[in-house]
């Protein structure tokens, strides 16, 4: 097993290097140049050359790549062309808010979707099942910005139950308002964004859970458990559900990178200071180093997430063994 883990980790290195080369090449081959956006509209070619030199954009692309790699290995992701700030600082300023939001969303998705999926499966083609199926398709079909604006309009403006946007009331924190008041304030701010994203994304998990459960309850061992005269509750919870959850648990591993993913639309609508707006701005401004750092972070997590999913298989399914 340790052997397997070590081998997988070593295999990741060439993979990540390949991704970084592709990433770097795509960024630099794309039309549009940060210098054209940074320089004066009427800057002369000489002035632009000078600016390129100052930013180190004059060297051949492979030299630029190697220099970038050299710095990254030392933990230095460089500085933004646009605001001159260290790339990592800009990312770390926003990452906690993205993690916080995505974590809550994931909790809500799983806490709601798993029971919904199970009940839908047990009462297949019931009114509840149909309702949930319709809701699922609705959640997939309706754009999140629209739901977001509708919620803001009703709950934020008309009913005035919830704050419109942001992560908390300005100036309200544990020191000024006490612990519980702060918790209530932060919770009030996070309800709408979590609801909007969870509504749109829980479909997958619920449907997955439903079909997994449907499959399991037709298995022989479930019939055997019933035949032994076990109460239905025990049959479902101990025998069926535990097995039906297996694929869902591994799904969690694969979804790890999503925790770090920015959501441009949700961040715009709810003025959430996440990483999505940072990356989209960097893309439009050709702020290469920020885009590279965010992409590499995503790629690394994706690779690690897949690895983790594989490991989780072993943990939850005794039939699988790696050597």
């Amino acid at each position, binding site marked *: 097993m340790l052997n397997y883990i070590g081998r997988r980790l070593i295999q990741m290195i060439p993979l990540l290097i390949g991704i970084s080369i592709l990433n770097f090449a795509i960024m630099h081959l794309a039309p549009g140049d940060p210098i054209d956006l940074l320089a004066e509209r009427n800057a002369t070619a000489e002035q632009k050359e000078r600016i390129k030199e100052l930013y180190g954009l004059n060297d051949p692309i492979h030299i630029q790549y190697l220099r970038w790699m050299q710095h990254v290995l030392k933990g230095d992701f460089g*500085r933004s062309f646009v605001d001159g700030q260290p790339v990592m600082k800009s990312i770390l300023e926003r990452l906690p808010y993205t993690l916080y939001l995505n974590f809550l969303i994931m909790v809500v998705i799983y806490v709601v979707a798993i029971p919904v999926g199970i009940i839908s499966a047990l009462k297949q083609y019931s009114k509840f099942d149909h309702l949930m199926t319709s809701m699922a398709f609705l959640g997939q079909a309706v754009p999140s910005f629209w739901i977001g604006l509708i919620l803001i309009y009703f709950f934020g403006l008309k009913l005035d139950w919830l704050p419109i946007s942001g992560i908390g009331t*300005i100036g309200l924190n544990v020191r000024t308002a006490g612990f519980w008041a702060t918790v209530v304030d932060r919770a009030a701010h996070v309800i709408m964004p979590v609801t909007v994203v969870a509504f749109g994304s829980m479909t997958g998990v619920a449907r997955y859970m439903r079909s997994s459960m449907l499959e399991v309850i037709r298995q022989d061992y479930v019939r055997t458990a019933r035949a032994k005269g076990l109460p239905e509750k025990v049959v479902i919870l101990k025998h069926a559900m535990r097995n039906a959850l297996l694929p869902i648990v591994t799904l969690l591993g694969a979804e790890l990178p999503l925790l770090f993913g920015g959501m441009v639309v949700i961040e715009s609508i709810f*003025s959430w200071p996440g990483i999505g707006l940072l990356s989209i701005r960097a893309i439009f401004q050709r702020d290469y180093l920020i885009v590279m750092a965010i992409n590499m972070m995503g790629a690394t997590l994706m690779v690690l997430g897949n690895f983790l999913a594989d490991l989780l298989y072993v943990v939850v399914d005794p039939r699988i063994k790696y050597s």
Partner: protein
Amino acid sequence: MRKSLIMALASVMILALFLGACGPEAPAPSGNGGGADEPVKGGQIVFGMTGDPVIFNPILSTDVPSGNINSRVYSALVRANANMEPIGDLAESWTVSEDGLVWTFKLKDNVYWHDGTKFTSADVKYTYDAIRHPDYLGIRATDFKPITKVETPDDLTVELYLDAPYAPILSKLVIGIIPKHLFETTEIGKMKENPANMEPIGTGPYKFVTWEKGQYIMLEANENYFGEGPYIDQIIWKFYGDNQVMLAALEKGDIDYMGAIPPDDVARITEALSETHEIRPITQNGYTYIGLKQTDPIFKDKLVRQALMYGTNRKQIVDDVLMGHGEVVNANLPRLSWAYAGDELNPYEYNPEKAKELLDEAGWKLGADGIREKDGNKMDVKLLTSTGNKILEAALLITQQNWKDLGINVTVEYIEWAVLCEQYLDVAKFQSYALAWSLGIDPDFYLFFHSDAAVNEKGQLVGFNDVEFKNDRLDELLELGRTEMDKDTRKEIYVEAQKIVNEELPYVFLYANSSPAVMHKKVQGVTWGYAGPMFPELWWIKDGGN
């Protein structure tokens, strides 16, 4: 995000930016409500903004949100009053030598940086020299090109030496002065990395407190401000990624001010908020236009360009797209400018028949397929524009239909800003394109239409004259306008220059919008000028916010 991006991008094109500047020479403040009351200290005002600022350094920033903060934190040598005329800010007074080559500024004596250091002429010299440095990474170098030397005979005197008389110089000195003692430690080429850009120290009426990225910025009153005010204790800008959400925040009372209400929402907002809020149209200091390559086989003929002005229903664009919140423009200086030619220009009222006659006269005859042609060439026009501006998109849709009715086939291509700049605009390679200009306070437009500001012999664009307009009389006038110091004479010069532009048409001029801004009536003492609500240090909150 889209909106904020547009702002960030649009601002790249901004020539000069100075919002919320100003001082005592302004016209009588038209206060919100009871103007007779005495100003009181205290309270808070919350602004909404789309888009995060980038950098709190007036010589490096190019975007509107940063400009809003910088104009309150930093002071400049001079600033503009409500009528776009320069008045003293850090400068007590100034004189210009007989030959117009040396400007001498006397500085105010009681000015301190927010960290307590005394402000001196060395700070002014440092700022201007930084802009003139070859490694300078901002967009103001052209503005300071006429300056050959900055001297500081004593702590309170600055002398600017010019290579030739240059009347617009004062309008370039509205740029904030940065503290030498904090910036001199970094090389000019690495100025962006200086931490003082993120926690700015200025001499302005408001001190920087905090910036929570993507959330809000807070400023507080500078008790040691050298001028009158400030009265309001705290200013907050809250970030909104979406205009509709910002409107909801305005209605709910989360913010006290929002600029540029989208045309579609003006009626609703006016109905909902006119009791509690001041709603004012803010006429854009700039305009939207279609640039026509003057050397293009189709556009090189003046009759064709005039036909396009007559044949574009610009009034319909203003009425239907801007919902009446704007006006048709016929030349390149804004109504707000003291040199505006106004009534003396040809209004080119919509007249498709006249447009068709002009095209016939120019030799473009209607072909069998409904497209005009001349010497075997079809009247096919490719019109480029940047993605993301809904209003411009709608305006171009009308334009496209209008031109089609004249027998011109127009293909509109929407291109991402970075690509549009790199491959078309910065290399002056296009047939036509639609964009907007934001203007400075001086009427000088040498860089726009002088033939020396076009493409040089190496094929490089050297000014903003990417349409390669050339008119000898206009060249002469634009040179004269820069060297003539007398304002009335300059006005005559620029009125004639506008008439030439209006007649010769380097652009099809479209519109200037005037989206309303909304300010809560609790804010008093506001002067509404060319840049919207001005002189924030003189505003005060009714009852001090209690």
